[in-house]
């Protein structure tokens, strides 16, 4: 009996290669398009400033944020056996947003407190939602989604209370940021996010074979040799870090973790050894494109990138919920 184990893998690798090309194209497009179109090969001094100090940091930050959220979504879905699990819908993003705001209000001069408290908020929200959704009978889709809604709305109201402490100018930029906004991108912000997203993706990818079993069932995974509680801790912790860092940098960009892994599974199957790394690349492509649209659709004014992702994501969510 001959078995061609390599066939699936080489097909998947081709798909991955295509995604990388797509990312390259998206990055170039993102650098080129905007309120000001840039002739990338013939830049004057002002355009140079626009490209290197404003646009490129923003495009690259968008890519890292997209990768973080998509990888976190893909891993949470497998862990919780629920295709609707998504950092934004589970309230994890709002937890991170509240953490960021607290850092902003209480430690306004200490920049590194923002990602730190965002991570803390994300962890806290994850733990609360997980505890609420879990019952003796296990965890079903609806219970998890409802717990997410409750935590999200609760955290939203705390955020609203906090914003009332802010003055009018800060309030406007905050509202924008809350919906997902990449306009505050800096190179240093990008580097920090990049480091976290690379490490986070590697850590989660290292759990992908165990996640393949978790996706089938927690009990099955346990029976067939997965240290379930260890995997759960790693995935919750790492995805909270990914969500925390991206929310601290760009607010709550919603639905990326829902749309991207779903598309990947449709095209490349459910094996997390592909789904997790491919989601990282495709998430980057998606947010870069969404942000380019946010910058150009009503130029010279801007839309929050989160509004664009939600416009695409919400209908998909309804579709997935109905299909379940």
């Amino acid at each position: 009996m001959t078995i061609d184990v390599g066939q699936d893998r080489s097909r998947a690798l081709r798909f991955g290669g295509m995604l990388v090309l797509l990312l390259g194209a998206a990055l170039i497009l993102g650098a080129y398009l905007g309120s000001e179109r840039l002739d990338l090969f013939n830049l004057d001094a002002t355009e140079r400033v626009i490209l290197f100090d404003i646009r490129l940091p923003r495009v690259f930050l968008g890519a890292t944020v997209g990768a973080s959220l998509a990888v976190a979504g893909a891993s949470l879905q497998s862990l919780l056996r629920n295709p609707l699990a998504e950092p934004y819908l589970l309230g994890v993003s709002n937890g991170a947003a509240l953490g960021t705001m607290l850092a902003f209000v209480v430690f306004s001069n200490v920049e590194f407190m923002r990602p730190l408290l965002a991570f803390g908020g994300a962890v806290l929200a994850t733990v609360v939602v997980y505890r609420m959704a879990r019952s003796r009978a296990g965890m079903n889709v609806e219970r998890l989604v409802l717990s997410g809604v409750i935590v999200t709305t609760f955290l939203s109201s705390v955020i609203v209370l906090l914003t009332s402490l802010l003055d009018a100018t800060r309030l406007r930029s905050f509202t924008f940021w809350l919906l997902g906004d990449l306009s505050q991108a800096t190179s240093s912000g990008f580097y920090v996010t990049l480091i976290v997203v690379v490490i986070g993706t590697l850590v989660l990818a290292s759990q992908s074979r165990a996640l393949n079993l978790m996706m089938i069932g927690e009990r099955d995974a346990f029976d067939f040799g997965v240290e379930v509680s260890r995997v759960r801790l790693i995935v919750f912790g790492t995805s909270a870090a990914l969500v925390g860092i991206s929310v601290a940098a760009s607010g709550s960009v919603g639905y990326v973790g829902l749309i991207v892994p779903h598309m990947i599974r449709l095209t490349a199957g459910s094996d997390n050894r592909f789904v997790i790394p491919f989601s990282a690349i495709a998430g980057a492509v998606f947010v870069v494109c969404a942000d380019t649209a946010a910058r150009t659709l009503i130029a010279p004014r801007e839309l929050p990138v989160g509004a664009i992702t939600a416009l695409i994501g919400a209908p998909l969510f309804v579709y997935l919920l109905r299909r379940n």
Partner: protein
Amino acid sequence: MNLLTASSIDIAYADAPIVHGVTLELVPGKTIALAGPNGAGKTTILKALNGGLPVVAGTVELDGKPLGEYSRREIARRIAVIAQENETRFPVTVIEFVLAGRFAHGASLGWETEADHRIARTALGLCDLEDYAERLMNQLSGGERQRVVLARAIATEARILLLDEPTANLDLAHQAMMFRLVRDRCRTCESAAIMITHDLNLASEFADEIVLLDAGRIAANGTPREVLTAANIEQVFGVEVLLDDNPATGNVRVTTLF
């Protein structure tokens, strides 16, 4: 040496005692049937034998060593579980599902080897599923899924099989196939199986020993002929039965009197 030994184990769920003083000895080549009314503690015992539930008293030993001294992967290489399959919401193919049975053998990173694939394909063949490899799990019938679950357990190459009502969704032909596979493995591979079943006649035909449970305690154990007596069955299940010998196999046969 015993493959698996439970010595007077007590098991409790959230402080409520479920199982008291149960002793089981699984030697190579043997099939034990666990029978008893709903809530008698059958599934609970099966979970404890695999380390899924802690025992509050007594010990469970695997290959002569306490279960607690093994890692999850080491246990999974020795014990395969066949439980009721819960539907997955992700598009998982049959071959991916069966390859999950090889998880404990390879590195937790990385890929299944060609040998893993060969073992998985062979297991599919044994379960009458040669052409199913690329089909999606959530498009199969309950009975087909149950056979895939059996194939996954076979693919582990574990010597101990724990089966929780393995025939619940199966038609007659595949019930027989399941039992023959399990019994052949026990005889030829020096394996052993513990199987929960409600079907006393199947237990009589296929098990070497029946353990009859009642409210978490062993009400009777021994060969099918020793355990399946009118008195035992009436005491545990509260029904009257007629016992005779199966004309084809000579084993004891149970008919419920309504």
